[in-house]
């Protein structure tokens, strides 16, 4: 299986008045053709930053890619000239955002906003664009697409807006779709529909998907592999089946425990105690150690590096790596 996206040692720093924040610190991963890879973590883990970095959308200032490479189709996204990166965005890599109401321009019709991508990247004529827009809306399951195309974002429901975003993203048949919390802002009933839509379209178009989310439920349903991030670093990675059956990092275990609560009636929520550390006050040693039930004395002193405890199963935890002290 060929690699679509290869991220090597990505670091993204943000300059703030209180200091430099390392939003992403030395992250590496790969996405293969047709694969769905999910990145999970709490807010502040850096997962959304990864999504923006993949399209070189980190606002500079205050942000900056401080190191690493992002290889897409053999080219490094981070060093491409402006015109080249613009040719990739929306065409070869597309992105859908968390809140479709905010991600759509309120003063233009949805048809026009979808058509923009077609006109820009595929050079279609006005009539061709209109026809294709209707087809795309039909493809994502919007009823009466000809009428809807002429409507404005505020005329549509939340679920429909997200479908429009998906249509906009898929218009040029990209190789990679980045979905940043695609269902978070939607009603529960609509969430399932949107997920199914993404799945079916992904299969139909042979796309790879990078799914950013904090919801383990949708990871279980849609992803092949999952990467767990904490405080800007990858702490565990593996196939969905194995991570869910046998999580090794205490943080992952905590997440799964908390997620299980939803399924068991009358159970108490087993939260992970404590909060994500402030980026200005990172603990010495393992950043999760203060909250970790399995922390060893060593964990407070040294930050564990990623180590494969099994083939393609990297974990950044001394305990998982078999240490006892």
């Amino acid at each position: 299986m060929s690699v679509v996206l290869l991220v090597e040692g990505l670091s993204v720093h943000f300059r703030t008045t209180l200091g430099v924040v390392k939003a992403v610190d030395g992250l590496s991963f790969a996405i293969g053709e047709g694969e769905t890879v999910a990145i999970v973590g709490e807010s502040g883990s850096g997962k959304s930053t990864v999504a923006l970095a993949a399209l070189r959308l980190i606002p500079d200032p205050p942000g900056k890619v401080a190191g690493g490479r992002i290889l897409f189709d053999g080219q490094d996204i981070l060093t491409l000239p402006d015109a080249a990166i613009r040719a990739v965005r929306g065409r070869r890599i597309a992105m859908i955002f968390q809140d479709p109401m905010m991600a759509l321009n309120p003063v233009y019709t949805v048809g026009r906003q979808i058509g923009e991508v077609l006109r820009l990247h595929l050079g279609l004529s006005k009539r061709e664009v209109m026809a294709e827009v209707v087809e795309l809306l039909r493809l994502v399951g919007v009823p009466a697409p000809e009428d809807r195309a002429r409507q404005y974002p505020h005329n549509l429901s939340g679920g429909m807006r997200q479908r429009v975003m998906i249509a906009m993203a898929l218009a040029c048949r990209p190789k990679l779709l980045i979905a940043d919390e695609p269902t978070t802002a939607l009603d529960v009933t609509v969430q399932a529909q949107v997920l199914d839509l993404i799945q079916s379209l992904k299969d139909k178009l042979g796309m790879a998907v990078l799914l950013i989310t904090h919801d383990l439920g949708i990871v279980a349903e849609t992803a092949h592999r999952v990467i767990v991030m904490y405080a800007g670093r990858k702490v565990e990675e593996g196939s969905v089946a194995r991570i869910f059956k046998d999580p090794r990092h205490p943080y992952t275990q905590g997440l799964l425990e908390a997620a299980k609560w939803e399924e068991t009636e009358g159970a108490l929520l087993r939260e992970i105690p404590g909060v994500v550390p402030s980026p200005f006050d990172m603990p010495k040693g393992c950043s999760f150690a203060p909250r970790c039930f399995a922390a060893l004395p060593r964990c407070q002193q040294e930050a564990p590096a990623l180590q494969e405890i099994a083939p393609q199963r990297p974990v950044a935890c001394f305990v998982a790596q078999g240490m006892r002290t």
Partner: protein
Amino acid sequence: MRNTTVAFVVRRLLQLVPVVLAIAAMNFLLIKMAPGDAADILAGQMGHATLEFTQQLRREFGLDLPLIEQFLIYMGRLLTLDLGVSFLQQQPVLDLILDRLPATLVLMVTAISLAGVLGVGLGVAAARRQGSWIDNLVSVSALIIYATPAFWLGLMLIVLFSIKLDLLPSGGMMQIGAGKTSLAYALDVARHLILPAATLGLFYVAIYTRLMRAAMLEVYGLDFITAARAKGLSEGVIAWTHALRNALLPVVTLAGVQIGHLLGGSVLVETVFGWPGLGRLVFDALLQRDLNLLLGILLVSSVVVVIANLIVDLLYGLLDPRIVHK
């Protein structure tokens, strides 16, 4: 959609009526509160300020009737669009005003268009290059112009362009004998229009630039801009199509609020440049203490403000599809 817009316009025009009535009532009050009355002034002008003559004039003008009656007569006249007669020019006030109104409208429209185009352009440019020397230059210039009294600016421009450089005329609307053909006439008027329009407009360029810049910066922080970038659009396209239209909304709103201010400014600018419009008429009326004329101008300019506000609201509705005129 068309029907609701028409209904909206009609409703707003109907709202004019109570406003006009209120202003008329205020005018009446002001006339009555003024020390001395029309009869005194006229008698003084005529040089016969004796008591009997003044009393006789009062009877003629109906100024000795009870206040309520006077008010009703006044309102009645208003309904027939009779704003009274200018005491000293001996012409109906309304005629004088309508005669001068077009010149003022030309000046105002030119000034606001200039301000709009320049202000929006500079504001967008400054926002795109936030923090650069262009941005700082634009911001500082806007600050300074905003603090400049318009009439003084006009005078300084006259000194520079008219006196020192002898490039532009220092006043008036046209040169006598300059316009044989309508094109030559138009060009002549245009030449005379440059300095006054620039003077009146510069203040608003400053305001719109700063507002546009602030609005653009706010819009740039919104998610759909990032989404537009993610689609591969260039910064230029993003600035001029996606960001601009959203940022224009608060600017257009402000423009509406400022029409009254603009009229006030035209009083000063027209006086400085001798531009034969309503503003200049105010000055002339002031010199002669012509109360009827002044109050008439107050009334008419308020009507102009209401109509202009209506136009601005319609414009806003065109820009923002979320507004539905119910």
